[in-house]
């Protein structure tokens, strides 16, 4: 059976790629051009992921790829407009550096950056040219998602962040990915972050594509992250985009010995389609990985979280907790893979995915996938799908708390295990407020 996805983009792509490559012939190192070429060939061979295949069993991406997309991210946008939009994107009371990207390109003059001695911000292509970070780019482990190949082929200059050895960045860095376009845009954005030995940082990401753009955004982002020995990175993704936004985000993390990586995915958007892939690879011992997620989905939204943790070395811990609330006719997908390789003795790996369904038409597909090849390990996983407890609801109502407010309280309570892990108070407040607004909108519909 052939199961190929048809999209007008496929016919468009060879021309787009050829132009892209010839634009870069002078500026980019040969090694990058070669990688782009190979990635493009691979993509053309595999195409977009087909519905019902292993990794895309419940997620049909085809309906989101039918527009006449432009791949041109060049834009001129008035700084005053940008500043207005940025203000709206910053959580109240958040004291952070702001790193602004417009259509995937870092805008230094719009940003407030940390001291250069602590953090170095360049482009991915410049970093590859300099050589030192080239090995961290486009790394492969297990297998690559086909969207990643498309990204490697077509991304523009990309953003490279290096948190320097031993640095402890005094405030979180808030990256605001702003988009400006007037026709449907297919944006391939790329990031490469290296947190060097002993360094500590918190990075927050927000995507802003204002309604005034009046056209679909398909954002295919790849973020590659390296935490060197004893580094500690907290990574918050605040996904709050509007309905016309479609997201495929790939986060690929290589962790070295004694490092800690904590990922927080808050998906409380109206974006029609979200697919988050997180792949974590342990390349040293005594590593800690934390993956926390909370998703709220309503109307006809499709929210798909795929995570994979590769325990390749002994004495490492991973801890994953994803919670979701589904309303209306929304569909949630969770797939959590844990691979414990033969060498990875004394692994502790925990995974939980809990879902609350508040409407009859909503659905969730959840699948833990554990493959364990070592014998001295502690692994556990669990999934639940439930409703609001009628007992709890009646108890709250019997104290005079209204139906909608009582429901909100119980949803907050449900999310509590996740929100309590947030270490930046302004972010926690922001998340709780957005969740309130989200549920209020649902209650008033």
């Amino acid at each position: 059976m052939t199961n190929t996805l048809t999209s007008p983009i496929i016919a468009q792509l060879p021309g787009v790629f050829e132009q892209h490559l010839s634009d870069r012939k002078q500026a980019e190192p040969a090694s990058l051009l070669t990688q782009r070429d190979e990635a493009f060939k691979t993509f053309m061979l595999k195409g977009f992921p087909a519905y019902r295949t292993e990794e895309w069993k419940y997620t049909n991406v085809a309906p989101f790829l039918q527009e006449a997309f432009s791949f041109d991210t060049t834009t001129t946008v008035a700084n005053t407009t940008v500043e207005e939009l940025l203000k709206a994107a910053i959580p109240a009371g958040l004291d952070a550096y702001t790193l602004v990207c417009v259509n995937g390109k870092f805008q230094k003059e719009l940003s407030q950056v940390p001291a250069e001695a602590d953090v170095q911000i360049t482009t991915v292509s410049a970093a590859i040219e300099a050589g030192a970070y080239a090995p961290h780019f486009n790394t492969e482990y297990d297998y690559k998602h086909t969207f990643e190949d498309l990204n490697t082929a077509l991304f523009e200059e990309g953003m490279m962040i290096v948190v320097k050895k031993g640095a402890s960045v005094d405030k979180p860095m808030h990256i605001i990915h702003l988009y400006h376009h007037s026709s449907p845009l297919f944006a391939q954005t790329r990031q490469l972050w290296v947190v060097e030995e002993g360094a500590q940082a918190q990075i927050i990401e927000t995507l802003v594509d204002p309604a005034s753009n009046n056209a679909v955004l398909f954002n295919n982002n790849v973020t590659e992250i390296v935490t060197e020995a004893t580094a500690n990175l907290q990574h918050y993704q605040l996904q709050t985009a509007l309905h016309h936004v479609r997201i495929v985000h790939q986060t690929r993390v290589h962790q070295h010995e004694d490092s800690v990586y904590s990922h927080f995915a808050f998906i409380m958007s109206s974006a029609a389609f979200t697919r988050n892939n997180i792949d974590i690879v342990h390349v040293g011992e005594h590593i800690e990985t934390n993956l926390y997620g909370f998703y709220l989905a309503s109307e006809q939204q499709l929210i798909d979280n795929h995570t994979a943790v590769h325990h390749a070395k002994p004495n490492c811990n991973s801890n994953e907790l994803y919670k979701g609330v589904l309303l209306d006719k929304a569909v949630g997908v969770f797939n959590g893979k844990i691979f414990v390789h033969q060498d990875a003795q004394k692994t502790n790996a925990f995974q939980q995915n809990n879902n609350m369904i508040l409407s009859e038409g909503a659905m969730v597909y959840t699948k833990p996938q554990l493959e364990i090849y070592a014998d001295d390990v502690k692994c556990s996983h669990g999934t639940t799908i439930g409703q609001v407890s009628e007992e709890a609801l009646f108890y709250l109502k019997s104290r005079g708390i209204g139906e909608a407010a009582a429901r909100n309280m119980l949803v907050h309570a449900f999310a509590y295990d996740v929100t309590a892990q947030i270490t930046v108070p302004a972010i926690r407040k922001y998340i709780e407020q957005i969740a309130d607004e989200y549920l209020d909108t649902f209650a008033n519909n």
Partner: protein
Amino acid sequence: MMLNINDLQARVEEKAILKGINLQINPGEVHAIMGPNGSGKSSLASVLAGRESYEVTGGSVTFDGKDLLDMSPEVRAREGLFLAFQYPVEIPGVSNMQFLKAAVTEHRAHKGLPPFTPKEFLAFVKEKQQLVQFDSQLMNRSLNEGFSGGEKKRNEILQLAMLEPKLSILDETDSGLDIDALRIVSEGVNKLRSKDNAFLIITHYQRLLDYIVPDFVHVLYNGRIVRSGTRELALELEEKGYDWLKEEMHLQEPVQ
């Protein structure tokens, strides 16, 4: 009259539980309902509080002249009806403080009053906390989660004190309380008694009624109030148990 229950019938999952209850409560009165397990005491409390799993199949209930059965549970509460649960619900992730604040705010809004400022609220909580000697450590914990039986019951009475209801229904508040806790809870309730409010005390044992002295005692059996009287009735039940009642009832009502 504050509460007028007239021939109230209700069922749960097709099973008739309340089979024609009549009860009138005036402001200032304390009524006790006693009866063996399974006789329908909690069911009566649940129907009055508006638990949705019960279906009212006949009769009427007015509360301060308004049709109680027509109101949602939250409106009943705001109108001044309070049920202290036999089994208070544990809600992980909702802090006790946040819960009390939400409830008090709703009650005040219903009366056209602005929410307390954080400072006013803290002072209010502190005052009421002392009334039932509620451990302030429990305020920032999740609602009832991991509370001992006694702590849960005290929390119910704390809520009662904060919401200042017209009619309080206490469903076996004494069960699970040791003698000291029983005394503290009863003293709290006695301090809250006034000529304007009323209490309906459901209990299996007469012990509680030594502390909270009722004006009237009713015996509920098999979904009906089969006997009403004064305090002496409770003492009589204590002495004789419920078996004589059962025998007497079987004589009157042929076994089906």
